[in-house]
């Protein structure tokens, strides 16, 4: 077979790609033209694909000295005007938390891809896990809200990478793209749509008068418009608590205004951000809530349960953060049990349990990582949950 022609910037048509490659192509489709990264299994193929493709599509790839630098570099690139992304796995994700916090505080649009592996520490470099979900939510210090997506297939690695960029531009927040080793290394059919069918959100530039520009005056949606360096706005941004001018103000009153808006711009727009994939949820006695590769495994368990005559629905968290509190609360009033399989010992589950708040039973199907669940384990939880 001849080597694939990689020259066209958008590779419209069907492909046989793994999730990592599809993620790289999704970034290119979204207009990402800057990637800073550091090699780490099982995410390296994203950077490898980008390193090959960027010189053909007008992008700049730089391999940095570590993940601290990679995250800092994409923030700098975003303020230089580029759509920027970095890619890593658990240990590197830990190092990035410092500047993810800076990205949140300075409201810098960018995408952070984490192809998850088993942890803690070096853990299982080549084997899967979903153990960084709470790190995605709370990993950097201080109070903040974040957006995180979790693809379940290579096709979604393409589609949702575009969505991740759109959300980061729309809400000016670093978006966590939480893949896992299985989805990253799984090879399936990926169809790249025609350019006209891909919805790409442009950066929302400030259009007002230069002399009236203040970096952190939000719109009605609580999100301020962006500028970039070099356009004579002579703006200042800082990781310190700041006022609308972007100037540091170190007191409780300013902290309250600054942090409250950072949190509210996500919370108040949660319904617009949230993407859920539901199947036969209405009338179900048990609903399996899952995300990422665990959704694929749960699908088998759900089929087996339906064979037994149990009314089972599926709710897939395409966006995991912000947590879909409203929908989970609605379901908790209607079903006997919410079941969540995840490849950790209970992370997103704790949020589900909190929101269900005793209105229905909740069941965790835990897994330490290294492999996916046995569908029989999820089935057992469904059967248990369907009991009166």
């Amino acid at each position, binding site marked *: 077979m001849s080597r694939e022609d990689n*020259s066209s*910037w958008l590779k419209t048509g069907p492909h046989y790609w793994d999730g990592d490659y599809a993620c790289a192509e999704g970034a290119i489709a*979204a*207009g990402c*033209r*800057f990637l*800073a990264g550091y090699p780490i299994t099982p995410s390296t193929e994203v950077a490898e694909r980008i390193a090959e493709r*960027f*010189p*053909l*599509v*007008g*992008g*700049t790839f*730089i391999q*940095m*000295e*570590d993940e*601290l*630098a990679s995250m*800092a*570099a*994409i*923030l*700098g*690139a*975003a*303020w*230089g*005007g*580029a*759509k*920027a992304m970095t890619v890593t796995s658990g240990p590197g994700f830990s190092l990035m938390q*410092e*500047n993810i*916090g*800076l990205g949140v505080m300075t409201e810098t649009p960018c995408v952070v891809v984490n192809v998850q592996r088993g942890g803690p520490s070096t853990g299982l470099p080549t084997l899967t896990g979903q153990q960084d979900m709470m790190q995605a939510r709370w990993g950097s210090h201080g109070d903040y809200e974040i957006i995180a997506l979790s693809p379940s297939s290579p096709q979604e690695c393409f589609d949702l990478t575009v969505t991740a960029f759109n959300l980061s531009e729309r809400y000016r927040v670093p978006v966590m793209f939480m893949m896992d080793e299985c989805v990253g290394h799984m090879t399936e059919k990926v169809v790249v749509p025609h*350019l*006209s069918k*891909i*919805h*790409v959100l*442009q*950066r929302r530039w400030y259009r007002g008068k230069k002399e009236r520009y203040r970096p952190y005056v939000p719109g009605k949606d609580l999100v301020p418009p962006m500028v*970039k*360096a*070099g*356009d*004579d*706005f*002579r*703006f*200042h*941004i*800082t*990781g*310190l608590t700041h006022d609308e*001018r972007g*100037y*540091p103000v170190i007191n409780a009153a300013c902290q309250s205004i600054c942090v409250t808006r950072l949190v509210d711009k996500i919370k108040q727009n949660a319904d617009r951000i949230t993407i859920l994939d539901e199947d036969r949820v209405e009338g179900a006695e048990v609903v399996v809530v899952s995300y990422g590769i665990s959704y694929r495994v749960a699908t088998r368990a759900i089929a087996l349960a339906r064979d037994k005559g149990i009314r089972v629905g599926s709710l897939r968290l395409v966006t995991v953060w912000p947590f879909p509190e409203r929908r989970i609360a609605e379901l908790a009033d209607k079903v006997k049990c919410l079941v969540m399989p995840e490849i950790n010992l209970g992370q997103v589950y704790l949020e589900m349990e909190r929101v269900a708040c005793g209105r229905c039973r909740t069941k965790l199907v835990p897994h330490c990582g290294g492999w996916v669940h046995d569908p029989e384990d999820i089935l057992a939880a469904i059967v248990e949950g369907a009991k009166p």
Partner: protein
Amino acid sequence: MKHTNSQADRQIADGKHHPLEPYLRMDRIPHIWCSTCGLGTCLNSFLTAVRNSAIPRENIAVVSGIGCTGRTAGYVNLDSFHTTHGRAIPFATGLKLANPELTVVVISGDGDLVAIGGNHFIHAARRNMDINIICVNNFNYAMTGGQFGPTTPETARTTTAPYGSFEHPFNLPFLADSCGATYVARWTALHVRHLTASIGEALERRGFSFIEVISPCPTVYARRNRLGTGLDLLQFYHDNSVIKNGIDTRECDIRFQEQLIIGKFVDEEKTTFHDTMTGYLKDAVGEKYVPYVGPMEMPGNGD
């Protein structure tokens, strides 16, 4: 006639205004720095160099890390970024690569740049990233109350070295030189004209430049070591600095209250990271190579 920023601003600068007022965020003055600290002088030298430069002001961006010097970014009336501790250089790297038209200046302290940020420093120098580093060396972590750092001279006292520091300090010009910096200089906060001229040179040239500024910290370092006020330290710099342009940077070690070797040590031409990358890829990839063209309207059909 070559346009310079100073000509553009002369009208404002004449009379009752400070000549650098257009280059300062006057709504943030007074600054937080201590009386007789050297940072005001460093800022003055930098902004004077900017004013004298032919580079349009909107094309100059300042990136700082954390600490006393890290506050510099907050006072300059330029695109300015106050980032995280140690990460000013990689942030600047991303900024520069995303908009290669920018002149990017990192102004930060010795602890920020060569302790917590040391790895980024050596790699940016190795790559010959086209950024300018101004490192204000006050021999300690002053913002946190005066702890020893990677440049504290042996035997100098700090809060975390109450019996005197026993670690070997970095010789910063040698470090920068050996990692590949193409312009290396050291001045003190007393050598205002030399420093200003040096910053001006660095702004105009391409490649990784490094300027160390020895600067008084009257409130913590000098007080704990009974070195007097900032003025006493300037007198010390006056009496003990020796300009040795072009000297081997291995000879630039600093010992506690001994002779200070200052000057321009390295000034050589080398292809920058950006030029190397684009040149190499053009050859290696051939006619299919599409160079990055700077910030642009990204392809897309959305609103």
